């Protein structure tokens, strides 16, 4: 896979930005070119947060994109706003928690990661975002789990290193719960 252009969107506080950062670090560990570009507007306060992550084997041009290979949405607002931003034939991931309206497009691949429910069941809501990442990486293995782990060691301060095994477990849990809704 040459280039993956990804958008992750959800509520501020869901760990959207840090999930993107962990993926970006894993990309660095895998020797890829990476860009991590956050939305940093005032809309982040209590509203939606989103981040663009681009992983590529080539030099990355524009970090500003309108269409994405993959979009991961973690709330209704983000789904409403970004479903149309998936390239035809691209991928949309969502967590059904709190959703009233579901994806409607029939020209894209759609996957469900019930991460909120699973995290609540396991009592590990803090690693909810890593579970989402695990689900995504199961379908789009752009980086391997070893590099995610290496990236975590590199990006987290030492005092947080004891939590890394919990994160890796969450990654595997995420991979085990992702469901295919439709593939085109």
């Amino acid at each position, binding site marked *: 896979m040459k280039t993956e252009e990804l958008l992750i969107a959800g509520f501020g506080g869901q760990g959207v930005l840090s999930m993107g*950062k962990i993926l970006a*670090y894993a990309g660095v560990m895998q020797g890829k070119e990476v860009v*991590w570009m*956050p939305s940093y507007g005032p809309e982040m306060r209590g509203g939606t947060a989103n981040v663009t992550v681009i992983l590529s084997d080539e030099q990355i041009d524009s970090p*500003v994109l309108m269409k994405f290979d993959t979009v991961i949405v973690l709330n209704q607002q983000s789904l409403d706003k970004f479903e149309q931003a998936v390239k035809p034939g691209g991928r949309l991931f969502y967590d059904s928690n709190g959703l009233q309206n579901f994806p409607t497009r029939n020209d894209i691949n759609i996957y469900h990661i019930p991460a909120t429910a699973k995290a609540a069941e396991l009592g590990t809501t803090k690693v909810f975002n890593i579970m989402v990442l695990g689900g995504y990486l199961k379908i789009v293995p752009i980086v391997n789990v070893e590099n995610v782990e290496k990236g975590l060691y590199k990006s987290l301060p030492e005092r947080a290193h004891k939590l890394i095994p919990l994160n890796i477990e969450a990654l595997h849990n995420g991979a085990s719960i992702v469901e295919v809704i439709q593939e085109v």
Partner: protein
Amino acid sequence: MAEEIQLLKGNEAIAEAAIRCGADAYFGYPITPQSEIIEYLAQEDPYNKRTGMVVLQAESEVAAINMVYGAASTGKKAMTSSSSPGMSLKQEGISYLAGAELPCLIVNVARGGPGLGTIQPSQADYFQTVKGGGHGDYNMIVLAPYTVQEQYDFVKLGFDLAFKYSNPVMILSDGAIGQMMEKVTLSAQVPRETKDYGWNVLGKSENRERRYITSLYLQSEVMEQKNLKIQAKYAEIRKNEIRYEEIQTDDADYILVAYGISARIARKVIRLARAEGIKVGMLRPITLWPFPSARLKELAPKVQGMLTVEMSAGQMIEDVRLAVEGAVPVKHYGRMGGIIASPTEVFINFKKLFNIA
């Protein structure tokens, strides 16, 4: 030693570079979207473990730029950073620094204006930066990074140029480059050192003439001589320090002129255009002052048009038009107020502006 690679935000890259190139002092006042610079430096703790660099949050932007004046007078590598509204406040101090011929590094991670504006990226500070936002006949050397790596590299380059010419150097960045993360190859740590440059105030010894740092010369004749000396220096800078990058200009029918984040967008526009068989290239000014005018003039007769892509109402376009002297139509496309035009949007408008089907 193996290459040291880190994933850094553009703002963090500025701070890390400052420490690693042996900067002596940072004075600043927080403002979005560049607060990570002071945050990163302050985390190193006040007398930072690596180099002992002084990091101080001033009471205002005005205080910070005048602290830079003081530190620079002693030959220390001093810097400050801010974003657009804060940079307006620093203009008086910048004029004084240029007048006193003091080396220093100033970073503007620009946001949308005018006024308090937005916190999103913008390039509407071009005029202020290259035409002299403060009073008097002066110029700063202006470097415009378009990757996080350049954001890192231009700190050392900026200090080197500042000391080579005894002149303030500005890094004109934008909120997008400041906030995004990319891989950065780090340089080795350089120790701090203060040299005797022959002009800096280091404490006067008995048999040395006194040194006096000022921009005040009450006799017009003396002031004019000072101006002539500074202008001669600027001529030298124009001769030696013009930097730019060309991408696919060899066979280009159209040339995009863009810097900073807009040049990243433009790089994608080149791909979109060439996929449709339209030969587009780019000239990216790396120094906005001195400006690569001569090269643009050379390229002008070979192409059918030039488009500046700027996040402003069109500011750099004036310098491009001056450079090509009417030899080729020069147009502008850009969004304002903190909006970054997407590559597709720029491409569609490029075709419209030049009537390409």
